[in-house]
């Protein structure tokens, strides 16, 4: 598995690759799945108490960027714009 920095990946090699979803478009579904992933992994989950390091770098910028993306996709769709695939 080679790192692909900066690339928005769909869920690779997942046993649940058939994620339940009524997808309006493949691009959008992929982005929403990534936002849902970020919401859960960065804001949910058990936080251990004690001497631990949260070694996450650069999260905020990427996170904000993706939120803006989803926002703008939704806005474009409201205006009837068809986004390029």
């Amino acid at each position, binding site marked *: 598995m080679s790192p692909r920095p900066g690339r928005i990946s769909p869920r690779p090699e997942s046993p649940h690759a058939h994620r339940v979803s009524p997808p309006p478009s493949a691009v959008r579904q992929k982005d929403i799945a990534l936002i849902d992933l970020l919401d859960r992994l960065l804001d949910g989950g058990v936080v251990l108490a004690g001497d631990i390091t949260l070694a996450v770098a650069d999260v905020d910028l990427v996170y904000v960027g993706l939120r803006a993306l989803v926002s703008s996709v939704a806005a474009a769709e*409201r205006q009837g714009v068809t986004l390029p695939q």
Partner: protein
Amino acid sequence: MIYVYAITDAIELHDEPSGVHDGPLQAIEHEGIAGVFSSHDQLEVPSDPELLWAHERVVDHLMEHGAVLPLRFGTVLSDPEALRAVLDKDGARFALLLSRVRGCVELAVRVGLTSSEPAVVAGGADYMRERLAVREQEEDAADRVLAPLRPLARATARRPVQAGTTTVSESYLVPRATVEPFAAEVRALQAQNPGLSISCTGPWGPYSFVDGGGR
């Protein structure tokens, strides 16, 4: 250094995937509860989606074999002994949380809000008040749309609407056997509300249901 993925009552690993940076998974057990981790000489966990998916892939795999409490992304401990100490100290709390999520997965539903600007633009304070009112109406509308999903879930967690976004997001803790009926209900809601954009992703690990209460 070790990267920790999850707490689980599935003690033995079977055909497990590799973890972050291709690290092989290991487990340390204490009184029937295991912590699953990978060991690394050096460890950086940037926000690369590849790493996020690697974390979730491990959680996903463990859920095939038992109840799982996913840890927040980026949890790093000094060594396995530190993890054993956590299991020793918090074992009772973990056992309780495991019993709550056993047999269930998390599904995420988003409802795209229809508009975020008030029709009439008045002075500053009026404008802000009006915008807040519009947002509240939209959230109420999303609430009504989502209401039929809640009886299908063992628990529900609402995420706050983030500034600058236009979606209401809610998490549902759903028994595995109910995932398909739940998805069918989401499709029905989308059909009944063609003006809204409704999405459903999952199954996820129960990230939103591991803090002892709803969010």
